[in-house]
């Protein structure tokens, strides 16, 4: 069956940042340059072709954009300036929107203004909510302990509720991702055992980003890993030790020690990334979608306010600490609620999942009698 | 080792000789049995040349010209065609197998056709074995058909 070409898809992807893909003339240089492109997955060229031809379903069902870590080698050596790296990035944005069943993601990527508006609204709502809540039950001059403006156990409860919502939203999106990429693929048969056997891939890739390290340039991997681990540390601290985190004014080194390290990591890497994007210092910083800026700014804001409330609390400026806490929450809530399921941050789920799915796919397709896999091409006699 | 016949080819300068050259530039391999003699036009091929060739030990004779209608000299090859009919009868009279003599058309662009022609002709003559002068032929020579035009008889063979 022939698939109908959709000449408009390329316009759509342009909104997601794929401005230069039109220039590609398919020399294949990018795929051959990419250290990940190999036996079972050959990219980025093929995905770029799907995009140029508007083969929406092919593009939706591919895992390839998630296998790319954007080292930028391909873009550097592209003879036409087609920016394959950035195109893959844009496809990841587009895929995020496709996995998202609510359509919010698509709205945000296509119209960053809408995202900004949503963030501001949600922030104001959060701020208002927390101020009203704080005033209703606590004292603005108390940061922790009894009568705290924002008591840790309540915030804790709030955090866990929010986490529940996030997991639900992201979970549905992840299932959709599974359906598109594996579930609906009739050409392979995946046994439950295989799913189980490969499950280790998810935490492995989540924690180590080990594939990223195979890129020729290792620095981006290191930066990304620091950011990722810092964030994870912070997440654990907040989700499980919030009480001890907020406790003070004395320093609880067992908790705060980790907190300091994580905060340093977060602030350091976000500033590095922002600086890089401003100066376009590295290939993967050359092109910035509006959502990239929003994400980084939010993350920096949240980290800085987190550190600030901690410092103010230690310094005895309880009122200021509480106010900054509110601002902190005004950053945290939109960041988590909007970025995690609908925008850039969803990739922390999709990427390890993609590694998992690709490993499954690879093994499952080994069972299928494959066409000629030999390295030497058949003579192309007409 | 099989018998390798020697064939004398009369090729017109404009089409067939060029076609044979084209077979060369295109490296179309063929049997090495043909010995080409260039004439300006296939119409130049005097029947005595053919007789002379057989008399001198050729196992076959191939005459090639431009395709009918394409002659560089407008209609020289038509004249060849008419003359060829006569020649065939002469061959018959001499008792020469008619497969040993062939007239065909090769244009300047038909290198491949030329190569095929040489191969075909060689393969056809091979089973016939070396050409032997029949008595009739010798009589013919005695009659002076060939003698008349043979130049200075004192030429020694290399």
């Amino acid at each position, binding site marked *: 069956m022939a698939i109908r070409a959709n000449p408009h898809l390329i316009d759509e992807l342009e909104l997601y940042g794929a401005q230069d893909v039109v220039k590609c003339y398919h020399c294949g240089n990018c795929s*051959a340059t990419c250290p990940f492109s190999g036996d079972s997955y050959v990219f980025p060229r093929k995905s770029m072709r799907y995009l140029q031809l508007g083969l929406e379903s092919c593009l939706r069902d591919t895992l390839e954009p998630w296998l790319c870590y954007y080292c930028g080698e391909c873009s550097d050596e592209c003879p036409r300036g087609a920016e394959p790296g950035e195109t893959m990035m844009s496809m990841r944005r587009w895929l995020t929107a496709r996995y998202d069943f609510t359509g919010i993601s698509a709205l945000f990527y296509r119209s960053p203004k809408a995202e900004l508006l949503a963030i501001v609204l949600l922030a104001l709502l959060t701020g208002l909510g927390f101020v009203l809540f704080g005033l209703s039950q606590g004292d603005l001059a108390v940061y922790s302990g009894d009568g705290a403006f924002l008591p840790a156990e309540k915030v804790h409860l709030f955090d866990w509720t929010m986490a529940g919502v996030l997991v639900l939203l992201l979970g549905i999106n992840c299932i959709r991702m599974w359906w598109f990429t594996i579930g609906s693929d009739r050409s392979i048969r995946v046994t439950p055992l295989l799913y189980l056997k490969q499950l280790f891939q998810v935490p492995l890739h989540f924690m180590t980003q080990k594939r990223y390290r195979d890129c020729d340039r290792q620095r981006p991997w290191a930066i990304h890993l620091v950011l990722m681990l810092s964030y994870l540390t912070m997440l654990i601290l907040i989700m499980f030790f919030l009480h001890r985190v907020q406790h003070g004014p004395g320093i609880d080194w067992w908790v705060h020690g980790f907190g300091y390290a994580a905060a340093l990591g977060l602030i350091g890497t976000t500033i590095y990334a922002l600086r890089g994007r401003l100066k376009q210092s590295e290939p993967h910083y050359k092109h910035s979608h509006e959502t990239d800026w929003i994400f980084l700014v939010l993350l920096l804001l949240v980290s800085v306010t987190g550190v600030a409330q901690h410092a103010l609390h230690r310094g005895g400026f309880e009122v200021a600490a509480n106010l900054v806490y509110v601002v902190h929450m005004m950053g945290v809530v939109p960041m988590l609620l909007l970025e995690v399921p609908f925008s850039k941050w969803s990739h922390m789920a999709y990427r390890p999942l993609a590694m998992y799915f690709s490993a499954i796919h690879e093994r499952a397709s080994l069972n299928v009698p494959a066409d000629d896999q030999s390295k030497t091409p058949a003579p192309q006699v007409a | 080792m099989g018998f390798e016949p020697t064939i004398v080819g009369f090729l017109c300068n404009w089409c067939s000789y060029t076609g044979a050259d084209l077979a060369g530039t295109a490296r179309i391999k063929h049997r090495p049995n043909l010995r080409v003699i260039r004439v300006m036009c296939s119409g130049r091929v005097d029947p005595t040349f053919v007789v002379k060739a057989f008399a001198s030990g050729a196992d076959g004779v191939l005459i090639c010209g431009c395709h009918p209608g394409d002659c560089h000299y407008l209609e020289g090859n038509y004249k060849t065609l008419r003359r060829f009919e006569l020649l065939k009868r002469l061959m018959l009279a001499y008792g020469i197998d008619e497969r040993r003599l062939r007239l065909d058309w090769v244009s300047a662009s038909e290198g491949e056709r030329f190569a095929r022609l040489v191969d075909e002709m060689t393969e056809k003559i091979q089973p016939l074995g070396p050409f032997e002068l029949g008595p009739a032929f010798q009589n013919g020579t005695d009659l002076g058909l060939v003698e008349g035009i043979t130049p200075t008889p004192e030429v020694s063979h290399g």
Partner: protein
Amino acid sequence: MSSTNRVGVFFCRAGAGRLPGFDFAEVADFAERLPEVITVEDLGDQPNLAAQDLVSTIQRHALDRIVIGGGSPGYFKPVFTRAMAEAGGDPDEVRLASFGELFAAGVDDPMATARAITACAVNGIPFRLAATPDRVPVNPETLVIGGGVAGIETALRIASAGYRVHMVERSATIGGHMAMFDKTFPTLDCAACILTPKMVSVGQHELIDILNCSEVTAVSGSPGDYKVTVERQAQRVDPESCIACHACRDVCPTRVDSEFDEGIISRKAIYMAFPQAIPNTYVVDGDNCRYVRSDGEKCGACVKKCPKDAIDLDRTKSTKELQVGNVVVATGFETFDAARIDRYGYGQLPNVLTSLEFERLTNASGPTGGKIVTRVPSYNKRKKTEEWVFDPEGPEPDSVAIIHCVGSRDQNYNPYCSRVCCMYSLKFAHLVKEKLPGATCYQFYIDMRAFGKGYEEFFERIKDEGVFVIRGRSAKIDHRYGKMIIKGEDVVHDRIMEIPVDMVLLAVGLEPAHGTNRLAEVLGIHPGPDGWFTELNYNSDPTSTNRAGVHVAGVCQGPKDIPDTVAQASAVAARVLGSVISGSIQTQPATVSLEEISRQAARLADASV
């Protein structure tokens, strides 16, 4: 056509990259004052124009002729034509005032030319028709710069008509790159068989003077009568006396890389580029000669050895003044420096060769006598180092990969297509298959550009010979376990190829010869953005330049294969002969008066009625 046209002039700046520093306002101002012009609009650099807006503009002003001005106004013509048709006007009355072409070629007063072009378009007459050239007397002698196949062809054509030609060649021999080639595509006849007889004819022709080891340093004068200064390196071997006996070469102690053999073997400091060189005499490479470098202190062995006393190492460079009517520039090309792309490993990996190196390797008169072998390590006693050399008895490669578009079609290097690489790569594949029937041969290409007579047939034949053609540009060459691994994507079969090969041939593209810019300055002509000389008009005058009597032939105008080069070189000869036979040369008019335009327009209108 009545003389009361209602003309609208529209300026489109988009794509004005061809017009650096162009003052649109000035031309617009000029256009406004032309009698028939009703409206002048500057449409800025919007790339897309809405037909509906244009229709209403046309109807509002009741325009019956439209002139689009700009660098490449043709890009906007269809929408104007459509608008004109929809507005009920005559679609043929959409005229172009294209400034780009003359700008690129370079004219003395570009704004005056732009005004004239606009006025011509407003009057509905092509600029080239209105601008009738003047004729000035011409000196019948011609200077040909460059002794490659283009220069040779031009010189022979002119000389065979009975006119004198001076041929200036930078290197020691004429013949250029073609003399280095083994076979030529697609007929595979040997380059030497075609070229050397022509070289012989040039050398023997009494009307052709060859000035080898010479360069043009200054040109003055006006069209039809140019004074040219040629600087000639010291002629240390008297060409009249030299009998090419090699005695001098045998005693010369200095070895340098042979330019003719692309450095894969060496030559002496006194040398003849190749045995068939024209002029067929030895020359001294002053930069490397031990005697010259030491100011006569050392060596001088060749002088004593010469049986004809033809060598005088103390001679110095000389200059020569020539008076000519026409100058033909045929300076050709040099190949892209493959070392610029480090992932191909050229210069590091001994068996990565450029196309010219392979031409020499496979050439019967080359260093291996035409045997295709790989380089092997060998101890150089003189330099006391290990180096990789071609040994005629060395190992033959089992597999050869050919990478197309090296340095071409790549915005990081040269964005243009070099036009000949596809075909010569196919030729290489054939030579490999012919000489090493057991070898495997791979071609990595992007688009197969087999466009000439018999080329596509040649491509088919190469495929039938069992050459693997892989669509996909190879990205890199790794070196593992003593083999080179070439990595590329086979984009048609969607797989990554990692093929171990013994030899890689880089189909390097063409670049303007060094010194092109300086020569352009000396001659007052213009190299384009890619560095090739700009012709006066791409379509109708592909061999003339903005300076009357200065012509471009062959690759220096843009990459070309041999048949196209020969055709273009003969075309230049036609221009030269046309002028010398008629005794006068046409100047290139850059402007034309308004009176002349209206006079011509009236004539044209009468003619077409």
